[in-house]
């Protein structure tokens, strides 16, 4: 096996029945809800599922669903874990370890029902231990950090100085994405916004205003993946896995090799492009995990869609907006659609919808979608290339 190209396809894909604020369901229940929805999406007999990938206990989920798997993956590298699960699942299917994999993800990110830790974005719960011997505890918590809002964007002012990115261009990211969300009924925020609206929103952590930070929601999603051969037997339109990549960099932003570029994005996306045998010009639709407004900027550059320093003007000029040449984050992204903490699954779901041609804000003629995930704060990356064109064209 020299490549995962066209070895597997997503045949079932669904999010939780509800999305946003779901105070009456635990994170575990939301995993089950999403899994059942994905199973029903493709109409598979659940007893045909012989692989389970999830960041929760695979045993707990398998047992709840009455499934006895022959393959499991419990990779937990933050919000990109599910892109990595898809890659691992494709490899497991291609090598015969299992035939059909359920990838499931859910979080009670907002209401914290059944969750063991505090809400992401809540400074008290994210500020680390009071006496801490971990590396972040010894050398970062002592300076008043509180999770992603105070760390993820730490390199942005440096990036601005080195490339000329403006505050207006940074603010143009949520503005562009809201144009997509405007026609997405399940998006939490849909009203069109302006640069001024972004600047007038509350300062969270300079240079990031509230509208440049992701939502905090409840929800989840699940996928059913099987071999490309078998994919044709299902009622859904197969979404073929064409290219895959994964990588990790630093556990903390401050020790990235270069804080103005993600080495993990570069490594992971390069693998995915090479495996898929496509170039940036072949990509009709792009998802870049957007926990904060700078991520699509880093993503566009590190994935090679634009040159160094060009991403801000590329977005500001409307190239990623509806009607633009590179539609990006077409569900509205973590900034407008939903973000329960580990957003990667929602990015995959939107790629699948676009490739199937059934997205709420559908882009015309999508054949190839590139989905880029981030885990932790530039800690990990996963990349997937999807297509609706089969291997025997």
């Amino acid at each position: 096996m020299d490549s995962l190209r066209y070895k597997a396809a997503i045949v079932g894909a669904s999010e939780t029945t509800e999305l946003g604020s779901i105070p009456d369901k635990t994170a575990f229940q939301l995993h089950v809800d999403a899994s059942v929805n994905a199973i029903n999406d493709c109409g598979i007999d659940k007893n045909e599922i012989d692989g389970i990938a999830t960041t929760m206990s695979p045993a707990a989920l398998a047992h709840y669903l009455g499934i006895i798997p022959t393959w499991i993956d419990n990779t937990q590298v933050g919000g990109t874990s599910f892109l990595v699960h898809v890659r691992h699942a494709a490899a497991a299917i291609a090598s015969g370890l299992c035939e059909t994999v359920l990838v499931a993800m859910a979080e009670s990110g907002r209401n914290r029902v059944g969750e063991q830790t505090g809400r992401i974005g809540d400074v008290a719960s994210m500020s680390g231990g009071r006496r801490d011997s971990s590396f972040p505890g010894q050398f970062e918590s002592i300076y008043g950090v509180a999770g992603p809002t105070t760390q993820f964007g730490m390199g942005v002012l440096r990036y601005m100085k080195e490339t000329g990115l403006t505050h207006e261009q940074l603010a143009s990211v949520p503005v562009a994405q809201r144009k997509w969300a405007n026609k997405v009924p399940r998006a939490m925020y849909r009203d069109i916004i302006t640069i001024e609206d972004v600047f007038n929103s509350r300062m969270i952590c300079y240079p990031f205003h509230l509208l440049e930070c992701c939502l905090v929601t409840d929800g989840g999603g699940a996928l059913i993946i099987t071999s490309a051969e078998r994919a044709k037997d299902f009622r859904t339109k197969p979404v073929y896995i064409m290219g895959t990549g994964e990588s990790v960099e630093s556990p903390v932003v401050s020790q990235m090799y270069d804080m103005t570029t993600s080495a993990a994005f570069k490594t992971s996306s390069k693998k995915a492009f090479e495996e898929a045998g496509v170039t940036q010009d072949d990509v009709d639709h792009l998802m870049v995990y957007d926990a904060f407004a700078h991520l699509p900027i880093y993503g566009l550059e590190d994935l090679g869609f634009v040159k160094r320093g060009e991403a801000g003007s590329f977005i500001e000029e409307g190239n990623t907006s509806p009607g633009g040449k590179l539609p990006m984050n077409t569900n509205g992204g973590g900034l407008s659609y939903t973000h329960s903490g580990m957003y990667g699954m929602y990015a995959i779901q939107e790629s699948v919808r676009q490739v199937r041609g059934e997205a709420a804000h559908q882009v015309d003629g999508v054949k190839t979608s590139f989905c880029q995930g981030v885990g932790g704060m530039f800690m990990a990356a996963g990349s997937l290339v999807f297509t609706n064109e089969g291997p025997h064209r």
Partner: protein
Amino acid sequence: MSSGYNKPIPVPTPESDVFWEKAKQHELWIQKCLNCNKPFFYPRMNCPNCLSDNLEWFKTGGMGTLYSYMINHRPVPGFEEDAPYAIAIVQLDEGPRMMTNIVGIENTPENLILDMKLKVVFDDVSDEIAIPKWEPA
């Protein structure tokens, strides 16, 4: 020295105890590799460049530049009176970067100019621990 210090306090480990012992003496020490001669931070038992364990601690000049920062408007417990406060990255003249707070100057975008020169100072937060911070040089 404050017994009422309400911010997180670092707990040294066998890898980092030299760093904190020297900080208590108001000196900033980091490691370098005697095999490839590269300095590095955070404390490790092997060089991140060549994996050699032939390392030594050395005293830095305590000088650096402001590499990047954010200004947090939502203080974590213990930092309420500081907000809004900068969480900054200083690049030591020796090369490695570390996180810090900037003191001796109001933490505003106007005051905090990237690449401004900084020098290390120490905040004695207990009898055992002094935390390195940086101020305009």
